[in-house]
């Protein structure tokens, strides 16, 4: 039996889970009040002990991240709601359906990190989630949960909702900080620009994901021990997965770590429409190296098991592709995304992603040459040396190296399909592919 935490309210009360009335009727804001009576050390230790990992993609210990905050003040908190990784739509649901839960998590995080001005950065294409969050923020101000002297204490906390401009790269924390400073959203070099030391306005800054902070009221309510004990492995608590592509029941699922991919795709997702065969899936957002049923279907969904198999859980987005999917076209579509979203600072990413897109496009269009896959692998090697995972970095941020994941999949599992595109002068699956919805 799965324990629901961050999605429980929206499952139990689908009509009005986003309202303050519903939030307060279901224990809302009690933990923020409690946090006001706790010290920074107590809060950091509690979150460390819970084992909570960042849910934005990097899966770094949230408590440890907080502990790195440099002593200079003021310090800032930025909530990363710039969810843009293809396949990912979990933060949208949390923002839209339970904004007060996130705000309570923000208050707890702010207290733990001595922050008096926090920001929620929401991607520009999410105006409705942003409206819901702003309405919740306005309610929180009106009730004295935000602003001067929150909950009647002497603690001040301002919260600004900021809308992005349509750039995936701003989900990278230093790019997000540049964007929030009113600059182009280009990532900064780390070191020296680790946000915890030199973040927003060069001051100590915590950047946490929407789902990460949404877990905090539950961790304080349950206690770190019970939260950690929800799963029997090292990845604690629950994990939101966005299931999309060729599955009967796409959607967001809050799951315990440790079920298998087979259980996720066939039991929870209801399997592949039309009883067709599974061909491949992307296990953790468009950046993640792909998995195939022959090797990976019975692996447990944990950070370590996924890493040992050469991929990552990333943002929790699972994109399922059935037997009718052309792997060249799918690879081209993923790489086109990275080429479009490259900020252009680093040559391997700016040039490499564009070249990879062109090479795949011509293979798919029947203009491919026998050497093209080798060429694509060679270009990929220039962006991510050795095509390993995690990648050896040639660039400031991981965007470029992420773009080679589909090339690695073609090279490892689908060489024959690429070769038949070249020998047949076009896509061998096009005639077999259903038009429109499968």
């Amino acid at each position: 039996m799965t324990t629901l935490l961050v999605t429980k309210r929206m499952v139990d009360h689908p009509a009005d889970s986003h309202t303050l009335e519903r939030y307060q009727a279901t224990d809302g804001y009690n933990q923020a009040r409690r946090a006001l009576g706790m010290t920074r050390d107590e809060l950091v230790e509690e979150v460390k002990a819970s084992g909570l990992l960042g849910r934005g993609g990097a899966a770094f210990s949230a408590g440890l991240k907080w502990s790195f905050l440099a002593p200079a003040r003021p310090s800032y908190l930025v909530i990363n709601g710039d969810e843009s990784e293809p396949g990912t739509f979990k933060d949208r649901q949390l923002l839209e359906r339970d904004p007060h839960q996130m705000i309570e998590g923000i208050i707890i995080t702010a207290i733990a990190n001595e922050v008096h001005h926090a920001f929620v950065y929401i991607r520009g294409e999410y105006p409705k989630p942003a409206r819901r969050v702003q309405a919740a923020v306005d309610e929180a101000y009106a009730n004295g949960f935000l602003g001067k002297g929150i909950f009647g204490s002497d603690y001040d906390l301002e919260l600004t909702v900021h809308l992005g401009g349509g750039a995936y790269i701003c989900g990278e924390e230093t790019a997000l900080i540049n964007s929030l400073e009113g600059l182009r959203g280009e990532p900064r070099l780390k070191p020296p620009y680790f946000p915890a030391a030199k973040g927003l306005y060069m001051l100590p800054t915590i950047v946490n994901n929407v789902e990460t902070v949404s877990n905090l009221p539950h961790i304080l309510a349950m206690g770190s021990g019970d939260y950690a004990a929800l799963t029997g492995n090292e990845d604690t608590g629950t994990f939101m997965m966005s299931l999309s592509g060729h599955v009967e029941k796409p959607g967001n699922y809050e799951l315990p770590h440790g079920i298998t991919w087979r259980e996720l795709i066939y039991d929870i997702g209801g399997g592949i429409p039309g009883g067709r065969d599974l061909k491949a899936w992307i296990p953790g957002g468009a950046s993640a190296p792909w998995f195939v049923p022959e090797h990976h279907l019975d692996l447990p969904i944990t950070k370590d098991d996924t890493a040992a198999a050469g991929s990552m859980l990333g943002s929790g987005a699972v994109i399922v592709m059935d037997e009718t999917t052309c792997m060249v076209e799918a690879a081209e579509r993923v790489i086109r995304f990275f080429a479009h979203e490259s900020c252009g600072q680093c040559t391997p990413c700016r040039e490499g992603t564009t070249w990879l897109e062109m090479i795949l496009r011509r293979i798919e269009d029947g203009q491919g040459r026998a050497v093209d896959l080798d060429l694509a692998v060679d270009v990929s090697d220039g962006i991510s040396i050795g095509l390993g995972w995690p990648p050896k970095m040639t660039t400031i941020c991981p965007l470029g190296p992420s773009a080679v994941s589909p090339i690695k999949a073609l090279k490892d599992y689908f060489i024959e399909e690429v070769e038949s595109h070249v020998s047949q002068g076009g896509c061998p699956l096009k005639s077999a592919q259903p038009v429109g919805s499968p």
Partner: protein
Amino acid sequence: MSAWPEATQERARQIISRYPEKRSAVMPLLYLAMAEDGHLTEDGMAEVAEWCGITPAQVQSVASFYTMYKRERTGQYLVSCCTSISCMLLGGDDVLHAVEDESGVPHGETDEEGLLSVEHVECIGACGGAPAVQVNYELIEGVTPEKARDLVGWLKDARPSVVNTDEMQELFGGPRSFDWGIREEEGAVGPYPAFQPLGTVGKE
């Protein structure tokens, strides 16, 4: 001296007051400038520069970085069709082609009248309700090519002054990523996101 009406200037002051440094307000002010002129003009960017205490060139460097700041004439309705991987797998390309065909506007362009702009976009976070389309960033999930044609026809004929996501979802949508909850009345009044004072109707 600001060329903006007093109400817009007041909004600009409110927005700037939410940030520790006024340069941070450049992104929301760019949306405000778009709402004033229909798209981002040279004058609009110069105005934003004035408010934020930076140069017009600095504002342009920001505006040119982000896809949602439209520096060319944009239609009253911006129709954005997602063709990223999850939507592509479920027919997003067919939806785009239906929109292009029905409107007569190829992606990346605007019709002569200035009514419709069409673009294909990368992932808009609606993968569980693929294929997805946005009109002025208001979302419709589970769109078929046939429904996409109906949507274009509706925009041309009904010319709604406000586009509302719940209304469009009812008329032209299908399966959604998740239950949206109670209906809301707010919507977009132009090709920029309906957020805060930036074109939102309903409440301010």
